[in-house]
Each structure stands twice: as C-alpha cells, then as structure tokens.
C-alpha cells in the first residue's frame, strides 16, 4: 500500500426515521415487522394517486444540509428517476438531481479519525423516497411496501477519504449527527443506513488535487453495514493494487461492482457503458416551492447540541480524556445517559468511568441498546454514593452493579437484601483486628522486622473475616495503629 494511496468517496443513504409519516404519503413512517401494514394507495402506485411533500421531512433535510455546511436552494424541486424494478411500484423514484439543485450542495465535514482531524467535502445532499423491500425465495418473490416512500437522505462525498478506517469513522460521525439532530435512529440493523462506495487508487507521490491523476472509479453498490464498508474498501484496494502491479489497472473499465458479504469479495455487475439512463425530469405533481430564508434561519436555531460540541464540552469542561469523550459521544443514547448523570450531580469522571467500562462493556457483551439497560442514571448515582460514603467497597459496588442488572432491582434495595454494607465503624473493626492480631504473634514479629507486605496478609484476613465488608482504608490504618501498640 505504501506505494499507492486510495481515493474513496461515499454515497450514504440514511432513512429519516423521525417523521410521523412518509415523505410523499400519509402512511405512518414506522418500522414494522408486519409486512404491508404501513401503506396508503400512493405507496403501491395505484392509478391516480399523487405525491404530497411532507414538510417535516423537508425541515429535517434542511437541518442536515445546514449541519454539513451546504448551500440550500432558493426553490425546492423534485425529480423523477425512471427505471423498472419490482420494488419500485411507480416505475420511478421521486428524488433530487444536482440540477435544479437539491436540498444541499457543496458542504464539508470535519471528523475525528483515531485522534486525527480529517475533512471530507460533501458534493450534495438530497431528499428522496425509499423503495419497497423485496425478498426472493426460490421460485417466487415477496414485496413489503412498508418501506416504499420512507424518506431517505442521500449524502454524496467527494473522493477525499484515504482509507477504510477514515471511511468508517466518517460514517460513524454522520450516524451520530443524524441521531443527535433527531433526524434518524440511523440503525443499520433496521436497514436504515446503506452505502455505495467509490474506490480508485493512485501512486502515493501523485497530487490528489489534480483530477487527472485519479484512477478509474469503481463503484461498489449496496454495502449495508459499516463493517462491510471497511471490508469492501480494503478488498477493493488490494484488488486494484494487484491489477496495477500486473500492469492491468489502466485497461480496467469504469464499472459497478457488488459487495458479497459471504465471500468477502466484490463482484462485477455492469460497466459504465451499460449504465442505466434514468431519464430524469422534474416531477410535475410537486410544484416547485420557495424555501423561505427565515425558515432556514429558524431551523438553524433549532439544531440540537451535536456530537462535536459535546466532545469539546466533555474534554474542556469536564476534563475527560479525548479517548473517553469520543466513546461517550459516539452514540447519542450513551451521551444522553452521561448528560443525565451530570445533571443528577454525579462527578463527571466517575460517571464516565462507569459508563465506558461497566455499562458499555455489558451492552456490547449482551448485544443490547443503551435504552434497554435496566440501571438508570439515578440508580448509578445511588451506587456511586454508596461507595463514596463508605457504605460499600468498590469491589462490592462492582458486584452489586451486575446483580442490579441481573435481578432488575434498585441498588439500594438490593444492597440491603444482600447485607452489602461496609463495616466502617472503628469500634467494630478494631475488635475484629485485635482478635486476628492476637492469633498471629509470629507475623507481627515479621512485620516489625521490616517485612511490610505482611500488612496485606492482615488486610486479607480482615476481609475474610468480614466477608469483604471491611472498609479497606480504615482497616489498614487500624492495623498499623494496633501493631504499633504491641
């Protein structure tokens, strides 16, 4: 790879999940497992049905356009992209092309890639409708029109990404933005995010600001997970390098390939010569409408706090490390959880530690969503306070945490039930310690001879005796005091 650099561009499709209805239809915009339950006549293209633009979907797409620093159009147009496919009931998709301009053009996004700031230029952002979903089963196919007409934002970047790592970090940043802005759940498990990837390579020393130096663009269609994006890009870079080394790269034609998850390879679909002519024209049933600059300003003022802003706040205001802050902001639900902890008065570092280690560890292990976890920020607060007030030890706190998740009971209640209370009374501990010391003359002698590690042995004995309930710091200090007396 050292001899070459990759030029990667992305087309990221993300469903707008946070509108009540679909983009041109009054059917509910809800994910449903029951096929064909969220449909209106227009979603199946019954003759005479007409599209009606969902203003909220336009509002959200303008918000995304603003966040990406894009230019918004003076007038909004939609266009028809004409092609036949069974999952496309009208025989055309209502979308936006670059002329007349779509909801956003020429923006950029700066994102973090393993501690480095990278910037990618956004060519355009457009609002369109999703197709139905088709399942092919042996000799027949089934079509579910629930997805037909769901609003979809397509973001097209310039080929500014240089590695699979950068591409995935960019996508993760975008996903976080969509979540934070209340535009989409951006859940790839629900098929809400889909990507097409463009890859070409050039010699490492060539100038990538000169378009002439770019290699032949290969488009990889329908990559449906971030892991898939990573693997597809890496595979394609390797494949192209091999062609280059064999001197065959320059004869390679511009083509569209498909990512095959099973084999982990990209497979040839069609060459540019066979590219479909979509016969775009302006959708006549949606009159062009003016985007009032005052409305755009209002939308701008309504953009919620975004991950980049929280990232900065977490580091500068709360003194968290860049590493921890990045983990916290990556998923909005996680960050919201953290924010709630702060609101409840939990120390930021303590909250961050609990979330980044215990909570996320548990979520990842059990493959859960943040919202599914039983322990609330208020419960976490109780747990942390039990430790700081010496009620329980941190070892106990860790055990209690898992027990809370397991039994789904509040920490306070459970601690009581389990008799999990720390012995922090001087009197009580002292009597236990005196008893232990009385039975260990030999070890006291060793300690006094300078073998200070014997102290750990005594602490261990106290813990054993109290079944871990002894406050470790208090235990040590009483031990030292009592040994000194002898």
């Amino acid at each position: 790879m050292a001899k070459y650099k990759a030029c990667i561009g992305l087309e990221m499709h993300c469903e707008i999940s946070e509108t009540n209805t679909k983009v041109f239809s009054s059917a509910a915009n809800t994910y449903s497992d029951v096929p064909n339950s969220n449909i209106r006549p227009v979603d199946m293209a019954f003759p005479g049905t007409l599209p009606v633009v969902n203003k909220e979907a336009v509002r959200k797409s303008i918000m995304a356009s603003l966040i990406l620093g894009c230019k918004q159009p003076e007038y909004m147009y939609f266009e028809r992209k004409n092609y036949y496919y069974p999952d496309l009931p009208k025989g055309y998709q209502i979308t936006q092309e670059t002329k007349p301009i779509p909801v956003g053009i020429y923006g950029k996004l700066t994102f973090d890639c393993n501690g480095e700031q990278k910037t990618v230029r956004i060519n355009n952002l457009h609002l369109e409708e999703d197709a139905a979903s088709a399942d092919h089963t042996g000799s027949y196919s089934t079509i579910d029109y629930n997805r037909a007409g769901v609003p979809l934002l397509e973001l097209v970047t310039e080929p500014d990404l240089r590695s699979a790592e950068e591409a995935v970090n960019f996508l993760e940043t975008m996903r976080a933005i969509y979540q934070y802005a209340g535009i989409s759940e951006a859940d790839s498990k629900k098929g809400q995010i889909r990507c097409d990837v463009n890859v070409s390579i050039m010699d490492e020393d060539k100038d990538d600001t000169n378009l002439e130096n770019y290699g032949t663009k290969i488009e990889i269609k329908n990559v449906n997970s971030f892991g898939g994006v990573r693997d597809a890009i890496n595979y394609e870079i390797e494949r192209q390098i091999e062609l280059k080394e064999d001197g065959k790269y320059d004869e390679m034609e511009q083509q569209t390939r498909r990512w095959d998850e099973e084999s982990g390879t990209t497979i040839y679909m069609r060459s540019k010569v066979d590219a479909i002519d979509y016969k775009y024209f302006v959708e006549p049933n949606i009159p062009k409408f003016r985007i009032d600059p005052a409305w755009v300003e209002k939308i701008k003022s309504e953009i919620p706090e975004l991950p980049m802003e929280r990232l900065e706040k977490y580091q500068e205001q709360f003194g968290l490390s860049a590493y921890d802050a990045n983990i916290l902001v990556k998923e909005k639900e996680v960050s919201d959880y953290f924010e709630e902890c702060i609101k409840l008065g939990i120390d930021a570092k303590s909250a961050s530690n609990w979330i980044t280690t215990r909570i996320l560890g548990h979520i990842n292990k059990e493959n859960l969503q943040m919202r599914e976890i039983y322990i609330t920020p208020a419960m976490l607060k109780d747990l942390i306070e039990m430790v700081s007030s010496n009620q329980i030890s941190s070892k106990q706190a860790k055990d209690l945490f898992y027990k809370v998740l397991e039994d789904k009971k509040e920490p306070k209640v459970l601690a009581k039930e389990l008799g999990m209370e720390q012995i922090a009374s001087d009197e009580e501990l002292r009597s236990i310690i005196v008893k232990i010391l009385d039975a260990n003359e030999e070890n006291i002698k060793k300690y006094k001879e300078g073998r200070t590690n014997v102290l750990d042995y005594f602490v261990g004995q106290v813990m054993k005796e109290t079944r871990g309930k002894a406050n470790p710091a208090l235990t040590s200090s009483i031990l030292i005091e009592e040994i000194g007396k002898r």
Partner: protein
Amino acid sequence: MSYMDKGIKELHEALINKKVTSRELIEESIRKSHEVQEKCNAFVTILDDAKEQEVTDNLLSGIPFGMKDNYSTKGILTTGSSNTLKDYVPFFDATAVEKLKEAHAVMVNKTVMDEFGMGGSGITGHTGIVRNPWDVTRMSAGSSAGSAVAVASGVYPYATGSDTGDSIRKPAAYCGIVGYKPTYGMISRYGLFPFASSLDHCGCLTRSVEDAAIVVDQMKGIDKNDMTTWDSKDIHLYENLTKEVKGKKLCYIKEICDIKNYPNPKEELVLHLENFMKTIELCKNLGMDVEEVSVDQTLLDAEPSVYVVISCAEATSNMSNLTGFIFGPRGEGNTWMEMMKDYRTKGFCSLIKRRFIIGSYVLQKENKDRYFHNAQRVRRLLVDTWKDLFKTYDAVILPVGSGPAKKLEGEEKSSDRESEILEEHLQIGNFGGFPSITIPNGFVHGLPVGVNITGNCYDDQNVLNIAYALESEMGYKGQTVKEVK
C-alpha cells in the same frame, strides 16, 4: 315527456316541485344509455342499479350524470378504456367523484375514452370505436368521447371529462355541446388516471355554459391530496354568471383564422372559418371589442411538436406503474421482466406504444436537451405570448378544429398538415393551464362546429361570462343531437 334533454336548473326545479322523482330521471337516463350504447358504443359500464339520491338544495342532487372512465370510482370498474386495467376496481374515489357524491348527484354510467386519454379520435378504447351521434360514420373526437356523445344525445345534462390537449373541448365541438376545462389546479386530479401530469385537467361536458358553471362549482376545490390545487372558495361561477360583457376585449389570431394561410382549403374549412367570422360579428354586436392579432408563425408551427414531446415524455413515466404486478391482469413469463413485457405488449394499443417510444426517446440523455428541454422552452415562449395577449385582452377566441367531425374512414388527408395548427392550438390552453371553454357556434354541412374562448389563469369567471353572453345570441344552447342522415 323526457327530462334528460333539459338543463340542470330546470331539472332541479322539477325535482323540488315533485313533478318528477330522482328514480324516474335515473330510469330515463339508463334507458337512453342503452339506446346510445347500441348506436354509438359510448359506455364501458352502465350502472343499471344506480340508486336514487335525496333531493336537497344542491342543484345537482338527484340528477343523473356520466363519469369518464379515467376517474377512480370506489367499488366500480374503472378501466381508462385500456386492456391493462380491464378488470380494475378502485378501492377509493377520485376527489372530484367524492365531491359529486357529496352533492347527491347520481352517476349512471362510465364513459368510453381514448385509451388513458391518449388520442383525439374516440377510436382507441378497449371496448371499440365511439361513433358520433350526429352521423355514426364520423368520429366523436376524444378522448372524452363517450361523455360528449352521451351529453349530446340527451342521456343526462352533464358528464365529467379530462383534458390534456383538447380532450374535452374537441369532442364537445364535434358533438355540438359545451366543453369546459377550468384553470389548472382548480379541480383536484387525485384519483384521475394520469396521462401527462403537467397538462392534465379535469372538467365537464354540458349543453349550456350555465350547467358547466354549476358542475365545476361542485367539482372544484383545494385538495390535500393534490399539491397543484389552489383555494377557489371565493369563486362562485354559477352565481356570478352575467351577460354583461360590453367593453370586454377579445382577440383572434390571424395566422390561425385567416383562410389565406391555407393554400388548398377544403370546402368545410372555408365554411368553418366563415362561420367563425360570423361569431366574431356577434361578439361585436354584444358590445365587445374584437381585434385581429398576429403571432410568430414559427412559434405556432412548433406548437404541435412541443405537445407531442412533453405529453409523451410524461406519459411514459406516468404509466410505468402499469406492470401487471399490483393490479391489472398478470402477464406470462419466467422472470418479472418477461411478465411485465407480456402484460404491456398485450395490454396497450399501438398508438400508446408509439407514444411511449417517443417519450423514452426524448428523455434519453443524448436527446433530452434537444427535444425535451427545447420543448419546455417553446412551451414557456407560447405561454408567455398568450399571457402577453391577456394583458390587453380578456380572452382569445378561436375556431375549434378545421371543420366538423371527420369521417371514421376514407377521409383524404391532403390538407391535414397544412391545417395542423387549427387542429392543435387548443393545447396551448393546457401549456398555460388557462381556463378554456368550447361552445357550439353553428353547422357545416349539417354537422356541428364549435368556437373556443380561452382566458388567463384564475380568470374563469370572465371566460364563462363571455361564453354565456355569446351562447345566448346563437341559439344552440341546450341542443341535442338531430341525426343528419
């Protein structure tokens, strides 16, 4: 005593005064439907079980009417006169249908049209040729063929129509009745099978301007399901009809109306244009100023092609939903592509297929600018030219077609090319979305001919008033068919 040849107001009074019942009107209308079906083949469906409706204050209540077969009617076969939808029963009503139902109007039949509104002859419907009731060897014109034939034959006082090029206004002229297409977006298109969305209009065919005003008053209105509709609640066409048109300014276009423009005119063209000039004199007698204006001949010559390019392009896209998968008879084949091809090959008439090919061709990347975008530009120029005229004139008045209804067979085509603009100029009303009405203005060789009045957008009242005044001077108001042969 027959009622179905009367106007809406008269029928309403008869119902209110209990001289006749809704049931009796329906029975007469259905009986006449069967007679006209026998003679002219005007209907896809006759609703023999049509139910009488309560007679209310609404002028349309209890009165039978006909529905063009491209309006979706809930629970009633709606074919668009196409084999591709020969068994299609919609499960929702078009908005205009709902509005007529709200008025307690009684739909008694669904009328034959040119397949999906494409074609102006009345001969491409899947149930066969529609014949002109004045002379069954002649065309009714189309696409609202059955509607025009039925209204002219006195089956009922009105029928709905749709108009993409001249599909209401041309058959109205050929059948000697009134055809009115209001301003684009005044009547919702929701539920109307589309042909070319930017040109499609709903409207009606009647035997008087008054009835046209009454019917459109009921059909119009802003609709949340059609973004191109606009609020017309302050427009009351019928209430504001007046014959006070003194001082109104009209113009006609020299390049279209002057017989000298047609080097080898047929006799009927000569007579038609002479008759038109008589109508112009009548306008002057009514106190209107009428002037001859000139429009760039090159622009006019381009008009028919502009219509073909735009309408075919939109049509090919609009009808891509017809695949035979969700509705329509499923085609045969091993793959979805084969099944779809089979369905479309068998289902569409050759004229439509030809138009789909033109539509696809003009939208192809390499042709789009030369054809589609240029057509859009010329459309804009034509609309601007007409809008300029409307700065000076209340309306443009022009003859409809080059004469009376054409023969179904054996018509010589020698002068067709020459008089093309006469046949096609009504399409400019669709380019601009202008309100446009055709009324009968006499006879050529015993066959009816018509005159058209077109005004600026939202100026429907003015257009109707001019037509209303003129109609009252001519004596063809309320006419039904008198068979020529």
